[in-house]
């Protein structure tokens, strides 16, 4: 019998855990890497629920209807076949999660309950209170622990992915990783690698993302030749609680359960979403709601008490109902704001939330590097120009379910086992990362990487989110280049050889700057408005020119070589852009409007 292959999964959120489980079930052994214990992954932050057309409310819902809502909600930018497949698998995925013990809310008959969410007219969202992501993550975490107890999974928690290892043929053969406590750097061989490292929220400084979501793994892979697709499509969630340290999500489920958004106009409450979008009201998709809030606050000057906030009001709904269905988010609001949302309206404002773009993958979740797969938010494949609420938990589990068997199939056809690959391939990869750490240990310039990161976040949030102007995008790119220059003069006061967080942050920051350029220049080049990407100077969708996937590939300058990061060269590499046709063969593109009922395909 042929020697079996190990699989590496990087990231232990929903997508990574599902890929791990599927790989184990296919008879493979998995090395699972995560910077935090996997149970603390960012999936915990998903609140509202998971979509699947189980149709228990007699509304005539179906996977086809879910598919149409998702493609329409994504403003016709996604390749349609994987979206269709995901929607078809969705009811089975929800049943599976129920079998795993997720405490979903239930109907009087003991069946799964479903609630409404944005961009649909159906009750399609299964939920466990208002911490559904946490509960789904725990269920998969438990199953992976079961495999771990059986010896099929080795966990490397507290380890950070540093880079891919490619052989001479350009095939992915493993990774370099570092222990964040001991700072040991070593290589790991594998038949295949799956990145499940989530989104790049920290590129925008404050967002709804966890602080661990730097986007480093995706960004570094891009520097190593992986295509980055649709980077400019960043979802800004309409309702978050502004905060000093982060912008905390206030789930769309608040509106799904009847929450209304309003401001004061002419001395009376004005329910602006209901007024502007009578067909969908408070449950328009996120990009629409976010732009409406910006209009009300910035253009009309109707922010509450002159501040950049609007009301999200639940106080008309019985408190007991709210506690059962939304308890977790009510607690968050009360703990951080000191007010009870069952009694007074919440004050909210939009915040960066999700990246529709990510690493390019084929329909088997494999990137353009053979042997490298990507799953979950880090892959670009499902959500087009705007993600519908409660489709992210679904797409993460879906991607993991697809990737597991794809990886097993890929590994069957590997000709040279990873253990037979010359050790020089691995040693030279480790040497690159050792040199980087040595450089950072010596760095004694005047710049603080946390300060550079803060400035990056500010410029990205100001210019590359809700409303985009080309001159501002050009300005932002210049600012990013300035930050890259200043990165050369970085200083790290902490000379600790143990759990040195300043050093870890600096290492991440360089690649975050590179990824910020992919997002910014991608937005600059797309002269149209589609989903979350909105340019007032180009207000219409332009299907002829832009119904295409944006592909960014890194082009390193000759002087850079493997030493990119040391600031030796005077020039920086840049993204090169190309555009790939998409498959719209299943649902014919049509204008997207939420003031009137959707015309079905």
């Amino acid at each position, binding site marked *: 019998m042929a020697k079996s292959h190990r699989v590496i999964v990087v990231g232990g959120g929903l997508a990574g855990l599902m890929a791990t489980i599927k790989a184990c079930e296919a008879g493979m052994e998995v090395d699972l890497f995560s910077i*935090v*214990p996997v*149970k*603390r*992954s*960012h999936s*915990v*932050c998903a609140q509202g629920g998971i979509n699947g057309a189980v149709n228990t409310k007699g509304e005539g819902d179906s996977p086809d209807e879910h598919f149409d809502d998702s493609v329409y909600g994504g403003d016709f930018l996604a390749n349609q076949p994987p979206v269709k497949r995901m929607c078809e698998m969705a009811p*089975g995925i929800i*049943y*599976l999660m*129920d*079998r*795993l*013990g997720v*405490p979903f*809310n*239930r109907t009087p*008959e*003991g*069946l799964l309950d479903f609630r409404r969410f944005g961009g649909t007219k159906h009750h399609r969202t299964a939920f*466990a*209170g208002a*911490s559904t992501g*946490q*509960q789904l993550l*725990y269920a998969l975490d*438990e199953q992976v*622990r*079961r495999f*771990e*107890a059986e010896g099929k999974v080795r966990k490397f928690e507290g380890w950070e992915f540093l880079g891919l290892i490619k052989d001479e043929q350009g095939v992915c053969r493993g990774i370099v990783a570092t222990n964040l*406590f001991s700072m040991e750097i070593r290589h790991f061989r594998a038949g295949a690698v799956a990145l499940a490292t989530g989104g790049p929220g920290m590129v925008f400084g404050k967002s709804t993302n*966890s*602080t*661990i979501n730097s986007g480093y793994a995706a960004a570094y892979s891009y520097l190593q030749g992986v295509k980055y697709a649709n980077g400019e499509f960043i979802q800004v969630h309409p309702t978050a609680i502004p*905060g*000093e*340290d*982060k912008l*905390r999500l206030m789930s769309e489920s608040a509106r799904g359960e009847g929450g209304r958004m309003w401001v004061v106009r002419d001395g009376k409450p004005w329910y602006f979403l209901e007024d502007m979008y009578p067909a969908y009201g408070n449950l328009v998709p996120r990009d629409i709601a976010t732009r409406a809030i910006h209009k009300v606050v910035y253009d009309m000057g109707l922010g509450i008490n002159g501040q950049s906030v609007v009301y999200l009001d639940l106080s008309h709904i019985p408190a007991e109902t709210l506690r*059962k269905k939304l308890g*977790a988010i009510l*607690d*968050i609001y009360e*703990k*951080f*704001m000191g007010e009870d949302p069952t009694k007074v309206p919440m004050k909210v404002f939009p915040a960066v939330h999700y990246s529709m773009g990510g690493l390019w993958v084929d329909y088997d979740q494999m990137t353009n590097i053979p042997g490298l797969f990507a799953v979950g938010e880090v892959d670009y494949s499902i959500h087009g120009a705007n993600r519908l609420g409660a489709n992210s938990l679904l797409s993460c589990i879906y991607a993991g*379910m697809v990737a597991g068997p794809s990886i097993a199939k890929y590994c069957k056809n590997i000709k040279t086992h990873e253990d037979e690959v010359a050790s020089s391939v691995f040693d030279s990869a480790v040497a690159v990362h050792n040199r980087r750490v040595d450089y950072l240990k010596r760095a004694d310039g005047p710049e*603080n990487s*946390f300060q550079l990161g*803060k400035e990056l976040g500010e410029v990205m949030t100001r210019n590359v989110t809700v409303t985009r102007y080309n001159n501002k995008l050009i300005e932002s790119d210049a600012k990013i280049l300035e930050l890259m220059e200043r990165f050369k003069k970085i200083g790290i*006061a*902490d000379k*600790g050889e*143990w*759990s040195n*967080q*300043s050093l870890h*942050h600096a290492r991440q920051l360089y690649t975050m700057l590179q990824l910020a350029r992919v997002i910014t220049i991608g937005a600059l080049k797309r002269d149209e408005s589609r989903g979350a990407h909105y340019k007032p100077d180009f207000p219409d969708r332009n299907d002829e020119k832009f119904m295409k996937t944006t592909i960014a590939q890194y082009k390193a300058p000759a002087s850079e070589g493997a030493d990119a990061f040391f600031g030796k060269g005077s020039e920086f590499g840049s993204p090169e852009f190309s555009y790939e046709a998409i498959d719209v063969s299943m649902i014919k593109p049509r204008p997207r409007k939420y003031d009137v009922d959707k015309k079905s395909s």
Partner: protein
Amino acid sequence: MTSKQALVEVQIRRQEKEGAPIHWESFQVKYRSNMNVIAILQDLQLHPVTSDGRKTTPPAWEAACLEEVCGTCSMVINGKPRQACTALVDQLEQPIKIEPFSKFPLVRDLIVDRNRMFEHLKTVKAWIDIDGTHDLGPGPRYSQELALDRYKMSECMTCGCCLESCPQYGQDTQFIGPQAINQVRLFNSHPSGAMNAGERLDIVMGEGGVQDCGDAQNCVKVCPKHIPLTESIAKISRATTGRLFKKIFG
């Protein structure tokens, strides 16, 4: 408000690594309304300077979600084990004293290694023994009442506050603590999980199990998610007694 009042006084316990000397550093951070302990620690990353103007390294600390669902940013703040993200400056006496948990191996400054908690979950088999993840149709039906009870227990984010506060728990003791016992109750209450209820009870009947609880009831007071931990311990304790009788008398 004078400029003096606009500063937040903080004291942080510093330790390079396990066994290294311990010292305390004092800091002053600019006050902003609604700020939490995380905002203080973020400020120190930008300006790692002590109250007496000495340059230092930013304290090492861990955080992730910052909305109290991930369990990462556990620290002892003014003597109480809790999450730093929900520790609002306005509600804390100053100087704010921040220390790492004491019941786990220290990594650096405010970071400890809580891996042992996940080992406890393995010990008590905190999972449902499913046949596989292939499509097998809907799960078992159960009531909304049970779903709500299970949800409450299932909110445990393995933060470790209960263990930090428990007199019976420590690096030198066997007791698996309230969080793992609560998981036994969670899985034994699920229609499929109940099929392995006896196995889980046998595990917590042994050394380090439920009988090691000293009934101090600290756990339930510090749990940030208000999980009824003492109720879980009492229920599992009764269930183990019942099982023991059944084993003896058939």
